[in-house]
């Protein structure tokens, strides 16, 4: 006290400066914890950061020591002609202490601009944007190799080759919507077998090149005897030579998934209510008018009462007769494309709203006709004017196939009977009871229900189709093809 008391004004100033410095030092860790730096959040859209426009793309958000936050994507898929057409994607991230990884799949249309923000309350933790130049619809040719340049000759000059790490491969089929080929030559770290299976089931051609090291023998079993169907794609073993890879790619006829979805949604599954015809409405209304006028003209006071009662009764009857049961009419269609032990299910949900409003589907998807929409925590919402319909294509998901080829026979692997069974090129087959195996025979061609006929037009020859209570089932032909069973 004596020291400070004796130091006068200069001493007090020194004391104040020391106190301020101490307060600043003590506040630093707190401020750093409340406002994490930009490196604490990483958002990666597309496989290994390579985005494919007009396809489902994997999305990975990695945050460190960040509490619950919200990721928002804003995609403008408009054009100079149509103006802005905004797609909004919102996902809540749980966060917490340590590293949190959030994985999902997002449908990215061809866009003019794409921006994203990761926010915590009102604070933006991270953000970024892409321009129209990044909107590339070409499918990816994924290379898992330590010498990716050596495979350049195996692909077309304009092919979009990307070199990714094994850890970048997600184990979700929808993430491979924009992938044409996955080439694994064993020189890089081994990918997880389930990721490879998901890639094939999602529709990609997985090429296992050369003799893979022992650590990757699990992948070899996916290829079976050298080439096998898996879901909508295939797994094949090829020689360690670019020309062999080129040959395998040329021999591969990928299933056109967008054509399949278009065929699924071509005919409207839900129609506006038929209502009551104009002649009936006019006749009844004219009769009502006549009755009211007569009651008022000749009925006196009881006539008024009769007219009012009649008006009430006609109002109630008109309401009951003309009011559609539901303001939003729904329909759904699905097809499971199976090959080997896996199937890929495509769903199209149709909604027709009579009043103007928002229609919602509790799963992630996108409208088949380009229009603004929102995906919020996995649910899709579209604002529609009155008496309008929308077809929403849901994210494809893996399913167990219920119809498959077993040699020269078809097998029903499900628990429901299959009807309208047909093999393209062989014709109609007998209905299949649950668990039944039916040798392939030559049957009548044509006469398919409209939906199955449209699907048949976009499937390769030898594919089997059947109608199940849950939707249409497709078994893609094995690489060796299908043939009539020999007696």
């Amino acid at each position, binding site marked *: 006290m004596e020291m400070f008391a004796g130091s006068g004004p200069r001493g007090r100033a020194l004391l104040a400066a020391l106190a301020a410095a101490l307060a600043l030092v003590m506040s630093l860790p707190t401020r750093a914890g409340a406002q994490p730096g930009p490196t604490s959040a990483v958002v990666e859209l597309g496989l290994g950061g390579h985005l494919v426009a007009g396809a489902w793309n994997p999305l990975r958000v990695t945050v460190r020591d960040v509490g619950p936050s919200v990721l928002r994507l804003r995609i403008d898929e408009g054009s100079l002609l149509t103006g802005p057409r905004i797609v909004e994607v919102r996902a809540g991230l749980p966060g917490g202490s340590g590293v949190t990884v959030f994985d999902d799949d997002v449908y990215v249309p061809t866009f003019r601009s794409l921006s994203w923000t990761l926010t915590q309350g009102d604070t933006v933790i991270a953000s970024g944007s892409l321009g129209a130049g990044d909107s590339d619809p070409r499918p990816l040719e994924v290379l898992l190799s330590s010498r990716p340049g050596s495979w350049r000759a195996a692909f077309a000059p304009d092919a979009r080759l990307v070199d990714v790490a094994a850890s970048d491969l997600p184990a979700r089929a929808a993430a491979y919507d924009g992938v044409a080929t996955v080439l694994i030559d064993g020189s890089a770290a081994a990918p997880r077998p389930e990721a490879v299976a998901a890639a094939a089931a999602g529709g990609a051609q997985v090429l296992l090149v050369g003799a893979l090291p022992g650590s990757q023998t699990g992948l070899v079993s996916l290829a079976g005897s050298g080439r096998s169907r898996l879901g909508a794609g295939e797994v094949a073993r090829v020689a360690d030579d670019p020309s062999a890879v080129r040959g395998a790619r040329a021999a591969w006829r990928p299933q056109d998934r967008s054509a399949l979805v278009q065929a699924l949604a071509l005919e409207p599954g839900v129609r506006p209510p038929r*209502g009551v015809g104009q002649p009936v*409405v*006019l006749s009844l209304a004219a009769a009502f008018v006549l009755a009211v006028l007569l009651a008022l003209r000749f009925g006196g006071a009881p*006539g*008024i*009462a009769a007219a009012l009662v009649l008006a009430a009764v006609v*109002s109630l009857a*008109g309401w009951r007769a003309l009011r559609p049961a539901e303001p939003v009419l729904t329909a759904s269609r699905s097809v499971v494309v199976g090959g080997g032990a896996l199937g890929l299910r495509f769903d199209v949900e149709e909604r027709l709203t009579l009043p103007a409003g928002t229609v919602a589907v509790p799963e992630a998807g996108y409208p088949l006709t380009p229009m603004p929409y929102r995906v919020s925590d996995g649910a899709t919402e579209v604002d529609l004017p009155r008496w309008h319909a929308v077809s929403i294509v849901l994210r494809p998901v893996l399913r167990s196939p219920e119809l498959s080829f077993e040699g020269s026979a078809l097998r029903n692997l499900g628990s429901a009977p299959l009807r309208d069974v047909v093999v393209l090129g062989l014709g109609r087959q007998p209905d299949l009871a649950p668990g039944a195996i039916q040798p392939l025979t030559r049957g009548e061609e044509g006469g398919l229900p409209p939906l199955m006929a449209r699907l048949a037009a976009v499937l390769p020859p030898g594919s089997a189709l059947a109608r199940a209570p849950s939707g249409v089932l497709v078994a893609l032909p094995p690489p060796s093809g299908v043939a009539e069973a020999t007696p």
Partner: protein
Amino acid sequence: MTGAGRRLAALRGLGAAVPTPTAVAERLRTPDLLQVLALFLAALLFVLAVRWPGQGEANEAWFALAQTRMTLLALAALGYGAAEGRLPRHQRRVTAAALMVFVAVSLPFDVAAYAASFPAVPLLWAACLPFLEVPAYFGMGILLGRLAHRLRVTALLPLLVPALLVAGIALDVRLGVDVIDPLTAPLRVSWVHLAVITTLAAATVLALTRGHPDEDGASTAEGAS
């Protein structure tokens, strides 16, 4: 007199102010009102004939029908209010009640078209608004009639009535708010419109039911004659 006694007397007064069904029936049987009602219902039939869709098409019938109904009701109420502004109060009450019958008997058109069209506006709004709109416009008509009489331009009433309606529509368009316009009133819920119309309707009802007792007596005698 106690408070309860005053309330009872007021209710009795109100009861006496409500026109009897016989008086309303007599008024509705008069050729002018019956013809106007027939024309009004025929207009609604015409709108149905023009706007009712083919099967499977979007039903937009309610929008045209509700607008036509509300506008014609407002026009009729305004016109009769203006024409009877100088008549005894009892007669005005009977005419106002007869116009409420217009609202009631045209309700099935509105309800049926609403049911088939699925508009976004609530049914309660669509169904109840005309019951407020008619007395409100009837009251405005009375004011217009008296003003025209004071200005000695009664001969211009056939022009002033639709002009007032158009002025109301123009005012709303200028303000950008639904205040008085009967054309757009049924199509969207507007609290401003509801407040204005309710106030006008309440004022009309008060003006028709309360007032100098002599006028009622005179009017009853005049009405009977």
